[in-house]
Structures are given as structure tokens and as C-alpha cells.
């Protein structure tokens, strides 16, 4: 990934003296280049690169592979001490091991200005990540400016003008990402994690009760009112037109049942409808024709799911998440792994080692099951993160995840990885990205932005 690709070997040298490489020709080899399309989970991202004379050739079935090939080509170049650039004759044949290689950013716990989102999309492309999982709203703030329900951000954002994403902002992110082969999957997490939604949408959240009287606080989305479903239908209708990706993430994590239990209307509803368990209330209704991604709780709680639902594993220690991966795939669902890659959990030292070692297919299961693992995501939750520290916290630690998701399973030599990752990190710094250091060392060009 960052230097190691599936090489077929160095090619023959046909020249006698130093000759310049003046051209890299790009050939899109399939009839439909997909140039004007959005990338998807089934996009062909493979490419072949041949650095040779009289010209170098980059062949790819689709533009997505060409993008990756260009990045790889740029990484083959090196400079001598006078600044003259060279490249060695090389042949590369490359494709990703997993189709879904994502980064989660959280713009609710702290507002993230557009600039830092775009800079990180650029860095994702350098690392061959292809999914931006935008955890755009949550309890603390609602920065998404909805055209159907503008009061959601009016009342729910940290500030209705300075801390929102306008439709233009969102379009910019989506197109910026597309041009780099990155899908934008928004997450509108419900029914929990929705405190900020209630500010602009009265009656959306469940009023909690203290005994027989409302306590004044609110809990998850109120699942028994028709108005809730009217709102959700309209809201997700807008979302599915604004965000072109085939998938949307519905969240579904960490729903606290105590507020629901305390509310007499909900208790009564459940008696009337003779629900055996409250879990059936977690029926998420949408009228979109999108595929769904959901956090693992929804599966764990036995909710009825569409067969193409993508289940996002995030909880537990290694043994627990490996069991979860086994369970989810043995039930026939596709799955994504994030548990070992919570990059917001910082610690002293070279923690990238742990990220590099984790493997999403490391669990007891059949080949069929392992095929259902379509990839993983590095998560940078925002409780302690905003634009002041996001980029150094994310990079180069996320690069370790990038290689795990792209390169072959047996690429595991940590010492070799250290050497290549150090160079890759200096390259990001040279390109203006404040990727933090791995250990005592230096880059020929240190970071200039202070």
C-alpha cells in the first residue's frame, strides 16, 4: 500500500544512457470508464503500472483503478540531494483485498470546518481509502442544514450560521470525494444519539417520566407516534437524494431503554400491541431504496433486517469481536470491522503496531463466511478531537489500517512496514499534511505550517 504492491518484478532496461521518462500514458481498458459515475462497493479498483521507456503505461479497467495507479506512480519517484527526480523501471499489478476501506469522522461532538474535511479526503486518497463515513449529527449538535427541516440545524447546531454544513458544503464534499474515488456514506444515527434532533423537532424524542410526571428530559426517538414515522420518511427521502451513494448508515447503537420504560404511553402501546420484547420497537422504517449499514447492536438485539444489510462491528475485546464477526457472517450478513481501529483512543507509544496486526478475517469461520467481510473502517470519534488536532491524530496511524485493508493478508512484516511507513509519513508531510511522527527521526522536508 504505502510502497509495497503486488510487483511482478523489475523489467528489462533497453536503454544505454540516462534517458528521461517524459510520459505516463493512461489506458482505461473497459468500454465504460465510469468517469461520470459515483464509486460503489462493486467498483473495479485494479490497475497495472509499467514504468518503462519510451513511455510508462498505466492500465486500468475503470477510472478508480487509474486514480490508485497515479498515486502509486507518485510514490515511486525519489529525489537525489540536488532535487532531481528519478524513477526506476518497475512493473506493478495491484488491486485491493477489501472493497470497503473507510474512515469515520464525527462532526457533531465538534464542528469540523470544511477545509479540514477536504484535507483529510485528500490524505485518504493518498492512502487508498475509498469510503468517508460521515457521522454528521449526534446528541451534542446537528450541523446538517436540512432543506426539508431547516429548524433542525437552526435550533440544534452549535451555531446556526457558523457551525453548519449547507447544501453547497455537502455537495462540495461529495464531489471532492468522487474525484478521488471516495464514497461518502452519511450516518444519521437513530433512535439513540439524537438529543440535538429534539431541539428543532418537537415531539420527536420520547419524554422521560419521573413516576407519573414528565421529568423534563428526553430520551431516544419516540417510536410510537405516527408523526415520528412521517418525519423520518420525509427526512430520509431528502437524505437519499442529497447523498448519491447506494448506502446510508442508520446507526442504531447504544439505545438506552430506561426512558422508554418510564413513559406510560410507550408502556401502554406495548401492552396494546402485545409486544413480547421492546426490541421490536427498533423497527427502522425508511422508504429509501438504499442499502443500510447499521451498528452491531441492531443485529445483536435480534431485529429483523434486510438480507443485504451491512453490519458494523465495533464492540468488545479481540475475542469478543472475533466471535461477533463469526456470528454475523454465519447468519449470512455482510460485515465491516472497526473494533480494533478506534483511533480516537490514543495512548503513549507506537500504537500503530496494534492497528497493523488486526485482521478482519481473523475469526473461526468458513471461506464463505470470510467472503462476507467486505472491509473495515478506522474511526476517529470527536469527543476530544477537532480541527486543531484531527489530522496528526488520524495520520499516519490510519495508514496502518489502510495497508491492512488493501494489501495481501501475508504482508505482516512490522519492521519493513516501519521503514516504508516512515517514508510514507514524510511524503504526507511534504504534501502539506501534518501527519505526526512514528518515532525519533527526521524528514528531509519538515512540516512548515505552524
Amino acid at each position, binding site marked *: 500500500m504505502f510502497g509495497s504492491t503486488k510487483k511482478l518484478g523489475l523489467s528489462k532496461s533497453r536503454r544505454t544512457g540516462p534517458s528521461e521518462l517524459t510520459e505516463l500514458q493512461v489506458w482505461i481498458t473497459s468500454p465504460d470508464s465510469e468517469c461520470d459515475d459515483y464509486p460503489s462497493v462493486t467498483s473495479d479498483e485494479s490497475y497495472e503500472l509499467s514504468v518503462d521507456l519510451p513511455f510508462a503505461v498505466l492500465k486500468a479497467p475503470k477510472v478508480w483503478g487509474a486514480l490508485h495507479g497515479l498515486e502509486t506512480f507518485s510514490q515511486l519517484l525519489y529525489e537525489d540531494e540536488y532535487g532531481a527526480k528519478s524513477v526506476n523501471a518497475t512493473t506493478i499489478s495491484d488491486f485491493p483485498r477489501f472493497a470497503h476501506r473507510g474512515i469515520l469522522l464525527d462532526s457533531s461532538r*465538534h464542528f469540523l470546518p470544511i*477545509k479540514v474535511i477536504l484535507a483529510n479526503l485528500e490524505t485518504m486518497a493518498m492512502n487508498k481509502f475509498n469510503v468517508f463515513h460521515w457521522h454528521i449529527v449526534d446528541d451534542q449538535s446537528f450541523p446538517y442544514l436540512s432543506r426539508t427541516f431547516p429548524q433542525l440545524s437552526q435550533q440544534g447546531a452549535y451555531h446556526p450560521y457558523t457551525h453548519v454544513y449547507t447544501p453547497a458544503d455537502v455537495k462540495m464534499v461529495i464531489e471532492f470525494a468522487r474525484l478521488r474515488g471516495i464514497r461518502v456514506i452519511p450516518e444519521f444515527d437513530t433512535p439513540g444519539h439524537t438529543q440535538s434532533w429534539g431541539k428543532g423537532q418537537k415531539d420527536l424524542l420520547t419524554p422521560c417520566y419521573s413516576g407519573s410526571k414528565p421529568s423534563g428530559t428526553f430520551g431516544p426517538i419516540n417510536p410510537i407516534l405516527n408523526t415520528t414515522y412521517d418525519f423520518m420518511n420525509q427526512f430520509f427521502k431528502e437524505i437519499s437524494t442529497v447523498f448519491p451513494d447506494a448506502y446510508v448508515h442508520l446507526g442504531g447503537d447504544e439505545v438506552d431503554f430506561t426512558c422508554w420504560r418510564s413513559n406510560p404511553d410507550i408502556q401502554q402501546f406495548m401492552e396494546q400491541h402485545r409486544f413480547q420484547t421492546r426490541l421490536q420497537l427498533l423497527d427502522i422504517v425508511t422508504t429509501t431504496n438504499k442499502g443500510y449499514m447499521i451498528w452491531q447492536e441492531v443485529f445483536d438485539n435480534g431485529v429483523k433486517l434486510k438480507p443485504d444489510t451491512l453490519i458494523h462491528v465495533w464492540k468488545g475485546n479481540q475475542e469478543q469481536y472475533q466471535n461477533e464477526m463469526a456470528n454475523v457472517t454465519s447468519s449470512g450478513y455482510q460485515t465491516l470491522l472497526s473494533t480494533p481501529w478506534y483511533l480516537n*483512543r490514543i495512548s*503513549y507509544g507506537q500504537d500503530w503496531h496494534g492497528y497493523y496486526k488486526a485482521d478482519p478475517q481473523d475469526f473461526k469461520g468458513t471461506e464463505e463466511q470470510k467472503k462476507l467481510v467486505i472491509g473495515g473502517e478506522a474511526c476517529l470519534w470527536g469527543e476530544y478531537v477537532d480541527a*486543531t*488536532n484531527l489530522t496528526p491524530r488520524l495520520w499516519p496511524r490510519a495508514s496502518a489500517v489502510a495497508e491492512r485493508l488493501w494489501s495481501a493478508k501475508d504482508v505482516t512484516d512490522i519492521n519493513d512496514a516501519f521503514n516504508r511507513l516512515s517514508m510514507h509519513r514524510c511524503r504526507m508531510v511534504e504534501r502539506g499534511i501534518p501527519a*505526526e511522527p512514528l518515532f525519533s527521526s527526521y524528514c528531509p522536508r*519538515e512540516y512548515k505550517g505552524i
Partner: protein
Amino acid sequence: MNIMFAVSSGRYTRANFILPLLIIIQLGLHTVEGVWPLPQAFTSSTERYPLNPQAFYFGYGKQSAAQQGCSVLDTAFKRYFSLIFPDYSSGSTGLETFSQMVYQDDFGSYFVNKTEIEDFPRFQFRGILLDTSRHYLPVQAILKTLDAMAYSKFNVFHWHIVDDPSFPYQSSTFPDLSSKGAFHPMTHIYTQSDVRRVISYARLQGIRVLPEFDSPGHTKSWGKGQSDLLTPCYRGSTPSGTFGPVNPVLPSTYQFMEKLFKEVSSVFPDSYIHLGGDEVNFSCWKSNPDVRAFMQKMGFGADFTKLEAFYIENIVNITSALNKTSIVWQDVFDYHEKIPEDTVLHIWKGLPEVYQTELSRITKAGKRVLLAAPWYINHISYGQDWRNYYTVQPQNFSGTEEQKKLVIGGEVCMWGEYVDATNLNPRLWPRASAAAERLWSDEKQTSSVDSAFPRLQDFRCKLVRRGIQAEPLYVGHCKHEYQGV
């Protein structure tokens, strides 16, 4: 610097306060609560004065001993004008406090409330350590750190300038030290002009620059440009090819050190110098037959701590003769070295029980101490670790009042193994500011972490507004977010 106003001193407790607090908020409680570190004594009011950026100015009082032409204050006036009126940027600690009290309303107008402040620091020595050997830090990054230090009233920049990995200090007496020992001889060095720049920039902000040339350990990079300085390690009876600490048995060592420290003493004007002395690995010395022979000759037997003591004593004599007072890491005291009475010991090891014992021991021997152990903020962890830095009690150890007075201050250390210009600022700020208040303010008035939280959050937003990339404490927002990458 006294600013005269009157008000009720506010100490801010939680519950029972909602109604009056709501009223105060409506009136705009922008008082001394927004100031960090907490002044020793203050009274604030809700009486509000507008400030007109076109009309406001800093002036010298007729009775003031300093007048126009005093470089420190002239430049400070300019600096603080821009800080106070950020929309008007063109380009000393009472000024700092005043600047923190100025606020803008939603329309951008500037105000300050009637306030009275009398302030002075609890400890005289309030330092930040930066390590420019594990990673080179561009001069700009150092200057930015000095700005942020001034905002938190830090007053000593402890420059751990060289160490094992690299030697970026370009010495005029021994140019090979950096040309062979720096990461790169042209791009990763501090020229004499760079060093002068740092020192003068610091001076204008009231910050001392304390250089550390750590020896005899932590000196691998020195050996690249100064052959025969380091001890050759032996495997059996032949040299193994590797090198250890500075060689304490050769006279050439001390001749070199004398010349180097003569230069360092004239380049760095502060009257203190840090000599290091930590983490000396004895195995290489033990392996070397010449060193063993020397030990016999000196009657040290097999006790290498005596050899280390011998070395350090010689170095301290050199710097004393140059009229500098030495600061050394605690290891030096632990090895019973004979050091001058006025040497300051720098405590860096251990958990509270351990460093409190060390504080007792060293102050009992009548020596002054600096505390760094609880403030190794390079040790990052998930969550609000600023609270740990805030709740340190530097004088909490068993000892007499006399002993407690020997704690002259403390230092926040940002060792550089995992830190360079890409992540230095968010990692330093605002966590170091928690320690800043502990070193400046009165301990009784700043005993509540919960009270400190909203003030530090507010102060953090101020730092961001001033262009310091200070990271968030917890969820929330600033009116003006950081717009960079």
C-alpha cells in the same frame, strides 16, 4: 501592574446557583472568571466599559521608571493591541491578564468589566521543556511555543537542544558537532543567529531561555563530530565498535567540555545552565579496560557511581568558573555527588509517593528543587488528562516550612520521541495551561477541577482565537474555530 476596579470576589460553586447565575449570565458575566491562570486576588463587577479600537491605547504613566524606548514594553504594547482587537491585527504579564478580560459581544464590539487585580506568581520558575533532538523543531515552531507560553504566564523555556539522536546546535568552536551529528547539516540545525533570535524573542515576552547540554549519558550524537569523546565499549578484550557515555578518564574530554561550555555560557545569557546527568548506563564503562584501570587508580573500586560523580563534579566546576548556576536531573543527587550548594535538582522520576519522598530528601539536604515528574505531558492518554496535571500539589511532602520554600517551581516536559511540528501545539495546549495555573495561582483558590473546567475551556478558545492550535478539552465549540488543517 495594578488595574483598579471594584467588585465582589466571585468563587463559583455549582448547585444552588442557577437563578442568580442565570441573571448574571444575562448581564454578561465576563469577569475575571475568563482569566487563566487565576490571579492571586481579584474583585470583579458587572459594570461594563466599551473599548474603542480606534481610541484605546497603552501608555506609560508619568511616574513610571520605564518610558517609551523600553523595548520589552514597546513591543508588548504592539503585540497586545493585536491580541485584544483581533479584527485589527497589524501586527508583559499584566497586559496578558488585561487582554484576557476583554471580550466581544455578538456584534463584535469590545468590552471589559470593572475589575481589580493584584497578582503575582506562587512559584518563580514556571517552565516548559522542548526536545529538539529526537525531532528537529523549526525555529517558527519554537517561537510559536514562546507566544503560547506567555499567554499562560510560563517564564522559562528549557531548551533540551541536543541528545542521542541528533545534535542540531551549530557550535562556532566545534562546527563538526552539528555538521556530523545533526539529522542534516544544513536543514536541521540551529545557527548562532537562530539561537539569538529565540533568546531575544523570548526576552521580549519575559521568558528565560535555559539551555541543557545533557551529559555524560544521552550523548551519542556528540561522538559523530568529536571522535574520542565517547567511551569505546569492549567485548572481551577488543572494542565492539559501539560507544557509550562520555569518556570520563581522558583529559581531552574535560578540555573539550571547557571550551564548549565557555561558548555556551556566552551564547546563552541566562545565569543558569542545565547539565543533565540522567540515565547513565554503566555497562560500557565497565567493559572498557582503560576505564577500569582509572577506577582502580582513583580508588573507586567497582562503584561506578563514584566515577559518574567524579565526572559531574568536574563539569559543574567548569560551569561555576564561568559564573553559571547549575541545574541537574535528580540522578546526580541520588549518586551523592559533591555539588555546589546552589545547584538546583530537577525531579523527574516516579508516581506521587516516589517523588514526594525525593522532594523531602533533597530539600532536607538544603538544596533547591524543580518538580517535573507529574508533568510529563508527552505521556498522552485517552480522556481529560489535564485534570491530573491540575491537581498536582508541589509542596505536599513531609518537610518543614523552610524545606517547602526550596521548591522554586516546576516544569512541563514535552519529550520529543513522538512529537514534532506536526503535533506539538495541540499536544502542548491547553494541557500545559493546567500546570500553568498550578504554578502561578494560589492552591486554595484553585482546588476545584470542576470550577477550572469552564474557565480552561474558555481560555482554550482564546488561545485558538490567537492562532495557537490548542486542542479541545471535551465536546463543545468555540465561537471562532481553528480554520487550518
